[in-house]
C-alpha cells in the first residue's frame, strides 16, 4: 500500500477503473480525496484487477474498492483491521461479498437505508454551537462501534459544530448530519441514562424542520429496532438500499 500524495495521478488511476462491469462501493468525491491526501490518511493499491483505496483511521482502515476482474489477485494483503461496506440493492446483484470472503473478510453488520421526502419550507435554521467537542466525541465512541459508526475525526466534529450540523441536548444527546443537495443523518446518540424520554425523536424532528426543503437519508442497523422506530415515526421509510459491513479484523482485537 502506498500513501497517496498526488491527486492528479490518483484521479487518472481511478478513471482507469471505470470499465463496463466494474464493482465498486461508495465513491469518494474529489473534495473528500483531496482532504484525505492533505491529512496523509489515504493509501492506494492498484493491480490489473482493480484498485483499493484505504482511509486510515485511529483504530482501523476504511476500504473503497473498484474491482474490474475478480480472477486477478490483488497481490498484496490488506492490512488487518480493514473494514469495507458493500452496497446491496435488488437492481445491483453484487458479487463483491464472496470476493471479500475469499480474502478473509466476514460480515459484522447489515445496514438499511431510510429516506424522507422533501417536506416544504424549513421552519428552523441551523446555528453553530459552542458546545465542547470532547464530551460529544466520548458519547459517540461510547454508543458506536468505531469500525462501523463512520465516526468523525475531532477536527471534522469541530467543523460540524461550528457549521450547525450537530444538534445537541447538552452533552447527553446529539444528532450529527451532512447538509448538501440531500441531507443525511450521520449519527444519532442518546446517553443510556436519558433514554426513553423522547430525546432521539425530538432531535430528528428538529433535523426535519431544518432540512425540510430537501430529501433526507439515514443508514441504520437493520436490527436496530429503536432507531428504526424513531426514524419511521418521523417520516422516514426504507428505500430498498441495504449494505453489508465486512471486516478482516480478528474477534479478539475487540
Amino acid at each position: 500500500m502506498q500513501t497517496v500524495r498526488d491527486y492528479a495521478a490518483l484521479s487518472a488511476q481511478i478513471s482507469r477503473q471505470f470499465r463496463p462491469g466494474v464493482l465498486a462501493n461508495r465513491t469518494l468525491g474529489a473534495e473528500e480525496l483531496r482532504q484525505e491526501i492533505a491529512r496523509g490518511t489515504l493509501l492506494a493499491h492498484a493491480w490489473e484487477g482493480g484498485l483499493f483505496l484505504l482511509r486510515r483511521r485511529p483504530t482501523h482502515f476504511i476500504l473503497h474498492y473498484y474491482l474490474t476482474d475478480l480472477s486477478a489477485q490483488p497481490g498484496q494483503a490488506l492490512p488487518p483491521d480493514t473494514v469495507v461496506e458493500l452496497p446491496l440493492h435488488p437492481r445491483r446483484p453484487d458479487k463483491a461479498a464472496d470476493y471479500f470472503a475469499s480474502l478473509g473478510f466476514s460480515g459484522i453488520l447489515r445496514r438499511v437505508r431510510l429516506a424522507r421526502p422533501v417536506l416544504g419550507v424549513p421552519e428552523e435554521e441551523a446555528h453553530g454551537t459552542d458546545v465542547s467537542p470532547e464530551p460529544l466525541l466520548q458519547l459517540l465512541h461510547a454508543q458506536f462501534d468505531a469500525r462501523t459508526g463512520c465516526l468523525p475525526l475531532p477536527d471534522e466534529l469541530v467543523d460540524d459544530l461550528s457549521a450547525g450540523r450537530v444538534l445537541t441536548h447538552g452533552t447527553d444527546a446529539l444528532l450529527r448530519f451532512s447538509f448538501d443537495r440531500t441531507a443525511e443523518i450521520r449519527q444519532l446518540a442518546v446517553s443510556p441514562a436519558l433514554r426513553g424520554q423522547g430525546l432521539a425523536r425530538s432531535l430528528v424532528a428538529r433535523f426535519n424542520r431544518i432540512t425540510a426543503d430537501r430529501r433526507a437519508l439515514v443508514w441504520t442497523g437493520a436490527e436496530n429496532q429503536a432507531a428504526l422506530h424513531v426514524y419511521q415515526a418521523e417520516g422516514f421509510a426504507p428505500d430498498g438500499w441495504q449494505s453489508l459491513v465486512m471486516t478482516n479484523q480478528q474477534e479478539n482485537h475487540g
Partner: protein
Amino acid sequence: MEKLIQILTECCPGIDFANETALIDDGLIESLDIVTIVSELMDAFGVDITVDDLTPENFNSAESMWDMIQRLK
C-alpha cells in the same frame, strides 16, 4: 442522445431518463449507479471521465450528461 438514453435505461431500468431533471437530487440514481453509468459512457462514447466530473450537476439529467460528454470529446 438516443444512444445515451438506451445506455442509461440498461444501467438503471424503470427510470424516465428522457424527462427526469433531478435524477440525483430526487435519489433516482445514486453515486453507485454513477460508477456503472460512467463506465458505460466512457466505453460507448470514447471519452475520459475523471473524479472531478462526478458532480451532481453533471448527472442530474440525461441532457446534462450529454453536455458533459460533448465537452469531454
